[in-house]
C-alpha cells in the first residue's frame, strides 16, 4: 500500500524554495524541540528554530533543508513552512558556511565590547545548520 502523502511548501521572503504534493514524512526544528509530521496531522502552528528540517518523499528519498528560523503551519494535509532563510542541501555553499562558522567563532572568542554576542551566536548556529544539512546529504549519497 502506498504511503499517504501530504503537500509541503517551503517559502522564504525571497522565493518559493520547495513545493511538492508527494511528501510522506517531515521532521522540523521547533523552538520547543524537533517534531515530526505525517499525513493528516491535526492542525498545528509552530515556531521554528535555526536548524535542519528534513522530509521524505514518496520514493523514499530524504532531503535536508537548512532553515534560519521561521514558522510552520500544518492543516488539511498541507504543511507550509515560512522560513527566514531556507536552502536545500544541494544548494548550500559549504565553503561559505565554513567561513561563516569560523568568523562567528572568532568573533565570540575575541569577546570585544563591540561584539553582539546574540548575533554572533545566531550566525554560528545558522552556519552549523548549513554544514549539518550538507553533510547529512553527503553521508546519504
Amino acid at each position, binding site marked *: 500500500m502506498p504511503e499517504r502523502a501530504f503537500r509541503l511548501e517551503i517559502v522564504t521572503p525571497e522565493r518559493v524554495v520547495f513545493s511538492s504534493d508527494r511528501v510522506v514524512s517531515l521532521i522540523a526544528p521547533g523552538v520547543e524541540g524537533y517534531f515530526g509530521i505525517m499525513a493528516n496531522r491535526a492542525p498545528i502552528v509552530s515556531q521554528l528554530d535555526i536548524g535542519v528540517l528534513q522530509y521524505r518523499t514518496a520514493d523514499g528519498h530524504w532531503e535536508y533543508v537548512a532553515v534560519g528560523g*521561521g514558522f510552520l503551519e500544518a492543516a488539511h494535509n498541507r504543511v507550509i513552512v515560512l522560513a527566514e532563510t531556507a536552502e536545500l542541501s544541494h544548494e548550500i555553499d559549504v565553503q561559505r558556511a565554513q567561513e561563516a562558522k569560523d568568523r562567528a567563532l572568532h568573533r565570540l572568542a575575541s569577546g570585544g565590547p563591540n561584539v553582539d554576542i546574540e548575533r554572533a551566536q545566531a550566525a554560528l548556529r545558522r552556519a552549523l545548520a548549513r554544514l549539518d544539512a550538507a553533510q547529512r546529504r553527503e553521508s546519504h549519497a
Partner: protein
Amino acid sequence: MATAKEIRRRIRTVKNIQKITNAMKMVAAARLKKAQARAEAARPYAQKMKELMGRLSSSAACISHPLLERREETNTLFVIIGAERGLAGSYNVNVVHHALSEIGGRPVESVKLVLLGRKAISFFRRRPYQIVATFESRSSDVAFSDVQRLTARVRSMFEEREVDAVYLVYSRFVTPMKQVPTTVQLLPMEQPATEQKAEGDFEFEPEASELLGALLPRYLDTLVYQALIEAQASEQGARMTAMSTATNNAAEMIETLTLAYNKARQAAITKELTEIVTSAEALT
C-alpha cells in the same frame, strides 16, 4: 542661419544621445522584468504570513505587544524609499515631495528620517530633519537580511519610545508607466484582522500570543521588504518610460535638424550657382 556644417554636427550629437537613451531604456526594461519577477517571488511569503497572523490573532485571547502599543504622537519616524539612480524622470521628485507633504507642518525636531536610495539621501541631506539611518543598494539584489537590519533599528526606536509612530513612504507600482507615491503606517501595527470562522482546533506551539509576538516583527520586515522591491520596480519602470520618451524626442529632433540641414545645403548650392552664373555673365 547656421551653416550646414554646424547643423551636421548637431545631428551627430543628438544621434549619440539617442543611442545612450535607447540603451538605458533597454537596460531599464531588463531590470524592470527582474524586479517584477522578484516581487512575484516574494508574494507567497507575505500572503501566507498575513493568513497566519489572522489565524493567530483570532486564537490569541488578548494581544498586547510593544509593537501594537498606541500612544500620543509627538515624535515621528518616516522611512522613505527614493530613487537609487537618476534619469528616471520625475520618479524621485514625486516620492520625495509626497514625503515632504506627509511630514507637513510637524515641528522639525519631532521628525526623524530613515532613507533608502541615494537620490533620496542627497535630497534630504539639505533639509533640516534628523537622518537616523540610510541605506543604499548598489545592486538591485537586496537581501531580506539587509532589510531586517534596518527594520531592527526602526523597531528598537519605537520600543524605546524615541518615536511614537512610523510611516513608510514609497512608490507603489501600478504599471511601468504609472507609479503612485504611497504612505503606509508601519508602527504601531494595525491589529491584524481576525478570521471570520475561528478555527479553534489548532494546536499552537508555543501558545498563540507568544507566537504572535514572534510573528509581528517578521511581518514588519516583510512589509518593508515588499515595499522596497516594489519601489525598485517602480524606479525601473519610471526610468524606462523616461528614456523611451527621450529616445522619441531625439528622433523628432533629428528629423527637424535633417530638414534644416537639407535646406541649408540647398541654399548653399543655389548661392554658389548664382555666383557662377553672375560671374559668367560678367565675363561675356
